[in-house]
Structures are given as C-alpha cells and as structure tokens.
C-alpha cells in the first residue's frame, strides 16, 4: 500500500455517531414494533425528540433556536420534494416532445 492509500485509510477511518445514537435506535425500534406495520410517518427529523428535551432544559432562547432549525428543516424538505417533482415532470415532458 503506497503513501496515498495509507493517507486514505487514515482520512476515512471510522467516526463515532453521537453518544445517544444507540438510545435513539432503541427508541425507534420500540415505536416501530408498536406500530406493527413498519410504517414510518416522518413529519420532522428523527433527532427532534431528544434535542427538544435537552434544549428545554437549557433554556428558552436555545429552545427557540431549536424550533427555528426544525422549522427551517421542514421548509427545506418541502422545497426539496417540490423541486424533485418538478424536475422529474420537466424531464418526462422533454422526453415526450418529438
């Protein structure tokens, strides 16, 4: 393995997820099991419940910041879905044109 491959190994070494990741997975599996059908109703990002609890403890201003990030995320997801759909429609319309 040459120097570049060695550097790549170091650059791409494994990184740890957040400390509460395993707890969030456990929570998600419990919700999933309770739902039974495996449905996922995603209205906001999965990190919301834990982050909200932490920030409520940290104080009002931080919670407002958190709410703002959540609102922003939902706007971006909505626009992303809209953009994806319009892009797909445009591509299909172009394909259909003689």
């Amino acid at each position, binding site marked *: 393995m040459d120097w570049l491959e060695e550097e790549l190994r170091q650059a*791409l070494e494994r990184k740890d997820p957040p400390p509460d990741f395993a707890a969030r997975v456990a929570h998600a599996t419990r919700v*999933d099991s309770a739902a039974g059908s495996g449905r996922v109703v995603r209205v906001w990002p*999965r990190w919301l419940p834990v982050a909200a609890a932490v920030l409520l403890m940290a104080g009002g201003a931080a919670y407002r910041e958190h709410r703002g990030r959540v609102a922003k995320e939902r706007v971006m997801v909505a626009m992303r879905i809209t953009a994806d759909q319009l892009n797909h429609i445009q591509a299909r319309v172009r394909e259909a044109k003689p």
Partner: protein
Amino acid sequence: MIGLEREEQTGIDFADLVREHQSMVFSLSYHFLHDRELAEEVAQEVFLGLHRHMGDIKSGEHAVFWLRKVAAQRSIDAARRRKRRPQVALEEVAEPAARAAVYDPLLGELLRRLVGTLPETPRMVMVMRYQEDLAPAEIAALLEMPIATVKSHLQRSLALLREKLERRGVGGY
C-alpha cells in the same frame, strides 16, 4: 415472535449489534454523504431495517455483511434523493492557479473532500476499500458488481486523486 426465537437460537442480540457496528454504519454513510445529520438518519434507518429482518440474520458475520450492504444502498439512495448540488466529476474540481509547494497539513480533510466529489459508485468502492479495508472481491459481493469493475474504479479513482494532489504540490514521501 419468530424473530425472537431466531435471536435466541443464534445468540445474536440486536442491541449488541448496534453497539458493535454503529461506528461502521455511521461512518460508511458519513464518508459517502459528507453530511453528518443525513448520515445519522441513514444509519438509524439501516438499524431499523436490521431490527425488522433479525429473523433473517444467521450469524455475526452475516450481520456485518447485511449492514454494510444495506448501508451502502441507503447511502446511495439518500445521495440521489438529496440532489442539492450537481455531481461534479473529479476532473472538474477547481484547482488553485498557482502550484502550492508547501505540504497541506489538512491532507485528510482534502482527501475526504476529493473522495466526496467522486461519482456515487466509485465513491462507495473507495469508502469500502479504505474505511473497511475490504478486498476487491468482498466489495464486489457487497455492491453486486464484477471484481474487474471494482478494481477499475479503484485504479481510476486513485490515479485521479494522485493527479489532483500533485497539482496542489502534495506528493508521496
């Protein structure tokens, strides 16, 4: 209930699998997507999928194979759904006008960034090779492609990375 019985027979505990492999799954997704939050979401989805399919898992090794395979698939799906910025072929990554003669102390970050600009398939091949230290045959089995294709992706990607680094004055030592 069937899943639980299977778990008891194989001795594989889901929570143990999460603890043992969360870094692997998260990192595969993170190095591929270069987006921490999205990588967390993908990693969570992968483990949720594992939980639903625990009845199919035959052994610890099988679990690892399953996790790598699904993490790769979900990460690629997430990248395609994201489409926030156009895919930039490695050849198109902008280079500074002047050749830098000084060694870049942030080489790791530069390499991660350059890998992140690779098209999806070669990018995943590179992450599998250098994060997971997998042989081309193992990568071929995971990504369901010929070994020759895996090797070609590796060779070409390394050549391009070397070229980009040399232009920046970063070379072997």
